[in-house]
């Protein structure tokens, strides 16, 4: 391992003290004079045309300052998916429309002097609907004669990719490598099973919230809880039909996102009211709105066929996916692409087929959610790998070691399949998976526990799975950074990269501090504000450390160069003779401090601002790897599954800040365990969610916590900053397969449909 001074240290978060003292300002933590409160009326119907909206009584209520229906807004089709332009998600959304497509779709909006008045106004609005037949099962969406959910003429794809709303097809992807049928024919054992993953919500503790206002020049300022400030600026300008130059997006502290806030979901409504009234307007989602009207994890129905030889060679993988994108196609193409592209390259296999259809239904809308399709893919592949190993009598550990991709290999799948387009050729440079497997197995006690006979009513079992993800989207995502030097030797680091709680401000500051040879306290971080900070695609696709981190590193190197030039001038030597170490420039036996250099540069001779700027795009997306091990206890009388211990061994390259990296692992996998066992959307027969609150949608709390062990296995990725790869998403992918495999080890029953609630497990166990 290389030695660094700040990188690799578990520094305090740069915003930690302000968060710990409750002083950090989130979106809503600011007073605005004359603030109006917006509230939205939601559809009670899964599919209906709006015939008439009577807003007269609401408008005449004292304290109401505006009502918006589809008739009041420009009809501009767009996508709410916060992706780069042109977005790979279909254009099928309007700020408000004359049709509703799921229970929780927007009908109209009110702005009033208090939230109570706004609520009262909503109750005075009368809506006449023509109720249409609805699609409440993804299997029905593409059947001939199915109701057409997007029958509006504007629905379109803006990139070249299959899209047919007349068949409820939001996206289609196909990949063929080698000969799958031939591979299946030469197998000793062929498996063919169906798997199903379920709806879930991100549940950031801070629900969506935005405050919009006009500045003194009449520009629209949007203070919002977003992962994608620059995409938000572009998409809001588009949806409102105003120039980008008139919009400024400010991202303050964010109370979690996990992909939910990669959606430009709520900002347009308060912005439209602000433009109309000239007043500041706040729209804050309630928890219930977060469940019924924000985004979710796309459910998938996966048919997986594989062939395997007795010696453990996988001869074919045939992955067929139907993905329910809900009423709108947010991330419909890219999530399903990742179901294949972030799972299949993990294995040596020459015969691979992947066919995926994203379909519209009249159910809640899918979106970006940590794991982004890979979570669903591993739910099938991670279980079937265990089934394959079991079928040929091989230990899953040996099976993975034999079949996983190795350093130097070029995956034809990564090459063929990107996000909504072709991928890139990429030779695997680092892979710590074998060490992850070994250390994880030891920690869980695999050799002693796996495959052993069980006794008693509560049976224990262990299961494992191996995982990969990516680090950003190669040739697509760009991050940029600006660094400027102050006269006390401190630096402002301005980044568009978006810390939503992950600690990326800290990680990026550590990278800058390492290059500039200063303590972390000398780096003042500001992120992100579209007027102040350079562009960054935002926080998604596990990209910030790897991608924005390189932009910061390059910007800091540019600043270092300038510092050396000035120091050389001060020493009257050449730049090449000057070095920077421990916050001092040195040459010819003389030393000068950074503050002295900055002072000289700002005030004394040939004055200039020492600063640097850099952009970075990645040509590769080096995968992090992980091996997960779960030990469960299954009660054979109640079907209750308890995770006793969970081990994740993770190769994320260099952990720039190990404690923050561990935190990413632990948070992701607990979310994954909770998803696997208790989190579930319950619907009535008309598509209405029955449990939109934390009473009945159970996310894990401290008391549910199993013993968790995180092991970071270092590798050094040369294309990443100081050897780093990504860490944020991968660990949410393990719990479903690892727990399902552990349940099989405990009670001999395969759970192929999540979540593994007591009733499902008991039914499977009793065979009914």
């Amino acid at each position: 391992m290389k030695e660094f001074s700040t990188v690799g240290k578990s520094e305090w978060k740069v915003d930690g003290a302000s968060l710990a003292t409750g002083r950090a300002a989130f979106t809503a933590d600011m007073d605005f004079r004359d603030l109006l409160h917006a509230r939205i009326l939601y559809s009670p119907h899964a599919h209906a045309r709006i015939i008439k909206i009577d807003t007269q009584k609401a408008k005449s209520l004292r304290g109401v300052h505006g009502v918006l229906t589809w008739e009041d807004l420009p009809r501009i089709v767009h996508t709410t998916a916060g992706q780069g332009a042109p977005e790979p998600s279909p254009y099928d959304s309007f700020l408000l429309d004359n049709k509703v497509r799921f229970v929780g779709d927007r009908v109209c909006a009110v702005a009033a002097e208090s939230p109570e008045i706004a609520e009262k106004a909503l109750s005075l609005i009368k809506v006449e609907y023509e109720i249409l037949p609805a699609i409440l099962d993804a299997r029905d969406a593409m059947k001939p004669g199915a109701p057409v959910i997007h029958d509006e003429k504007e629905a379109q794809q803006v990139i070249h990719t299959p899209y047919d709303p007349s068949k409820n097809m939001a996206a289609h992807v196909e990949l063929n490598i080698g000969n799958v049928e031939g591979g299946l024919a030469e197998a000793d054992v062929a498996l063919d099973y169906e798997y199903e993953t379920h709806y879930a919500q991100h549940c950031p503790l801070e629900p969506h919230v935005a405050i919009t206002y006009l500045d003194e020049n009449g520009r629209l300022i949007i203070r919002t809880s977003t992962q994608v400030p620059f995409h938000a600026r572009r998409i809001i300008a588009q949806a409102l039909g105003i120039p980008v130059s008139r919009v400024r997006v400010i991202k303050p502290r964010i109370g979690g996102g996990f992909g939910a806030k990669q959606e430009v979901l709520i900002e347009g409504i308060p912005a439209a009211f602000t433009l109309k009234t000239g007043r500041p307007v706040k729209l804050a989602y309630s928890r219930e709105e977060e469940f019924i009207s924000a985004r979710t994890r796309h459910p998938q129905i996966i048919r997986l066929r594989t062939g395997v030889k007795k010696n453990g060679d996988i001869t074919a993988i045939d992955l067929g996916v139907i993905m329910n994108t809900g009423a709108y196609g947010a991330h419909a193409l890219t999530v399903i692409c990742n179901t294949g592209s972030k799972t299949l390259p993990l294995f040596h296999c020459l015969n691979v087929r992947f066919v995926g259809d994203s379909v519209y239904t009249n159910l809640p809308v899918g979106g970006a959610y940590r794991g982004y399709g890979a979570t669903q893919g591993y739910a099938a592949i991670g279980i079937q790998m265990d089934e394959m190993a079991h079928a040929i009598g091989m230990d899953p550990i040996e099976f993975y070691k034999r079949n996983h991709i190795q350093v130097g290999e070029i995956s034809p799948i990564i090459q063929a399949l990107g996000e909504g387009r072709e991928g890139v050729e990429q030779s695997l440079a680092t892979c710590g998976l074998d060490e992850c497997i070994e250390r994880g197995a030891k920690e869980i006690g695999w050799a002693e526990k796996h495959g052993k006979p069980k006794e008693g009513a509560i049976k224990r079992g262990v299961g494992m799975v191996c995982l990969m993800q990516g680090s950003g989207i190669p040739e697509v995502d760009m991050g940029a950074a600006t660094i400027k030097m102050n006269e006390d030797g401190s630096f402002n680091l301005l980044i568009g990269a978006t810390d939503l709680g992950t600690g990326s401000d800290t990680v990026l500051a550590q990278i800058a501090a390492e290059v500039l040879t200063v303590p972390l306290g000398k780096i003042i971080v500001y992120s992100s504000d579209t007027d102040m900070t350079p562009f960054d695609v935002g926080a998604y696709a596990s990209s910030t450390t790897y991608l924005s981190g390189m932009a910061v590193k390059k910007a800091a190197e540019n600043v270092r160069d300038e510092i050396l030039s000035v120091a050389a001038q001060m020493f009257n030597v050449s730049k090449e003779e000057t070095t920077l170490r421990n916050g001092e420039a040195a040459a010819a036996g003389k030393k000068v401090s950074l503050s002295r250099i900055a002072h000289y540069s700002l005030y004394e001779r040939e004055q200039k601002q020492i600063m640097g700027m850099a952009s970075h795009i990645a040509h590769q997306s080096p995968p992090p790897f992980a091996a997960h091990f779960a030990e469960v206890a299954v009660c054979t009388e109640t079907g209750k599954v308890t995770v006793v211990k969970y081990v994740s061994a993770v190769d994320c390259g260099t952990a720039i800040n190990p404690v923050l990296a561990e935190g990413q692992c632990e948070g992701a996998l607990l979310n994954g365990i909770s998803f696997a066992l208790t989190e579930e959307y319950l619907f009535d027969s008309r598509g209405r969610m029955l449990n939109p609150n934390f009473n009945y949608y159970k996310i894990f709390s401290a008391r549910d916590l199993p013993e968790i062990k995180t092991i970071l296995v270092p590798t050094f990725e040369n294309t990443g900053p100081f050897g780093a790869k990504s860490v944020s998403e991968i660990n949410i992918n393990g719990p479903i397969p690892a727990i399902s495999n552990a349940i099989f080890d405990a009670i001999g029953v395969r759970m192929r449909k999540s979540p593994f609630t007591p009733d499902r497990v008991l039914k499977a166990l009793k065979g009914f």
Partner: protein
Amino acid sequence: MIVNLNINNQERQVEIKPAERLIDVLRREGFFSVKEGCRKGNCGACVVLLDGSPVNSCLIFAARCEGRRIETAESLGSTENLHPLQKAFLDEGAIQCGYCTPGMLLSAKGLLNENPHPAEDDIKKALDGNLCRCTGYVKIIKAVQKAAEAIGKTR
């Protein structure tokens, strides 16, 4: 109507509406550390200490707090002079987005007020009403243990 509240050791006369919840009054008074996560008492983001015990401020009428002592995270410590709980949260990496942190810290303080040497299960039980989606709780529990040790040493 007017209520007299002792907020963070300061007596205040606050004008409220009869049905207002404590969370809304505290935030209007500028105590923005009191966060809203569900308004149903399920998530604990709005936890404050009422006469030393943790309560969900979204479930309490401000009018019922006449003459009572309220502590918010602002009272715990300052950036320059952190409370041992705050320091332990930073040392252990128990803060990610920080939205649950004020409520989490106050529930932990409420626990340590009652039980200065909590076992791991006591901590899990005390924090059970405070949801966190970022950390997986591992480091939060460890931080409370560390803080209890640190406070024990200074006694």
